């Protein structure tokens, strides 16, 4: 299992603390065994709130195992920056996808699904499906 190519997950938030905490939560809930690589890309260099194209590119490169990378974002500039990097073509690993999903619930679904060895389409579907879980 250790050399299995799992889909990587990047979590982009305006806040470094939010991105890191959601990553920790998702990995924690994914349980034991092999866990897909997860990298937070939160805030801007220097620690302020915002979105850093460099941190996103570096995070995506760090989780790329050749099976694709699913990127989840919070809002505003996080979404626009990822879309822009994807449009550039060579800024993110091949088979990187911006996944339309709620940030926390989507991250947990994505990491659990990716850790099971699922492909990028299945990871995307699981994360997007998190939108349908009503709470009341």
């Amino acid at each position, binding site marked *: 299992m250790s050399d299995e190519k799992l889909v990587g997950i990047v979590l982009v938030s305006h806040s470094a603390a939010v991105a890191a905490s959601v990553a920790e939560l998702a990995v924690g809930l994914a349980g034991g065994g092999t866990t897909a690589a997860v990298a937070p890309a939160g805030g*801007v260099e220097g620690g*302020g*709130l*915002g*979105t*850093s*194209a*460099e941190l996103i590119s570096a995070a995506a490169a760090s989780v790329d195992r050749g099976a694709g990378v699913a990127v989840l974002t919070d809002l*505003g*500039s996080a979404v*626009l*920056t990822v*879309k*822009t*990097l994807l*449009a*550039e073509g060579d800024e993110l690993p091949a088979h990187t996808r911006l996944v339309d999903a709620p940030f926390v619930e989507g991250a947990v679904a994505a990491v659990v699904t990716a850790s099971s060895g699922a492909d990028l389409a299945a990871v995307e579907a699981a994360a997007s499906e998190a939108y349908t879980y009503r709470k009341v």
Partner: protein
Amino acid sequence: MLDADFFRRWMTATAASVDRETERLTALDSPIGDADHGSNLQRGFTAVTATLEKEAPGTPGAVLMLAGRQLISTVGGASGPLYGTLLRRTGKALGDAAEVSEDQFTDALRTGVDAVMQLGGAAPGDKTMIDALVPAVAALGESFAAARAAAEEGALATTPLQARKGRASYLGERSIGHQDPGATSSALLIAALEEAAGE
């Protein structure tokens, strides 16, 4: 004809203008945004002028592509990918010609504005930078001065609108009565064309 020097002057003039207006842009972004538009753009355009000086790209397209890349990398807020896409798509549309006509530039800028609309999903009337850029492109065929006037008028006309995109849209009707900071900075970008042309 417009050469690479013209486009470098455009970026330098925009940077100087953003520098002068940083506090005003941030003040506009304070009631309806997250109060960082001025400082974000100032950081971005400072990086643009520094990079253009160091790398000295030789064609209009290359100047705008490099400037856009810097904005995407350094701004940190939504204006980074939006202005970055505007300049990169405009630059890409200009290709690698050493000089371009004003008509070619107008067509290329229209391509850039279309790309921004696609990226952000905003249309005219949503209280965004598009409300300054669309009338500016329409007037650009006439003169830089006309484009400047159209962009400034478009920015002022965002005041009574309700925001439908971005952070301000969360405020609903409370966004009414405030001039949009993105439309205001777009008017600075367009006004800098006239300055670059020495008109």
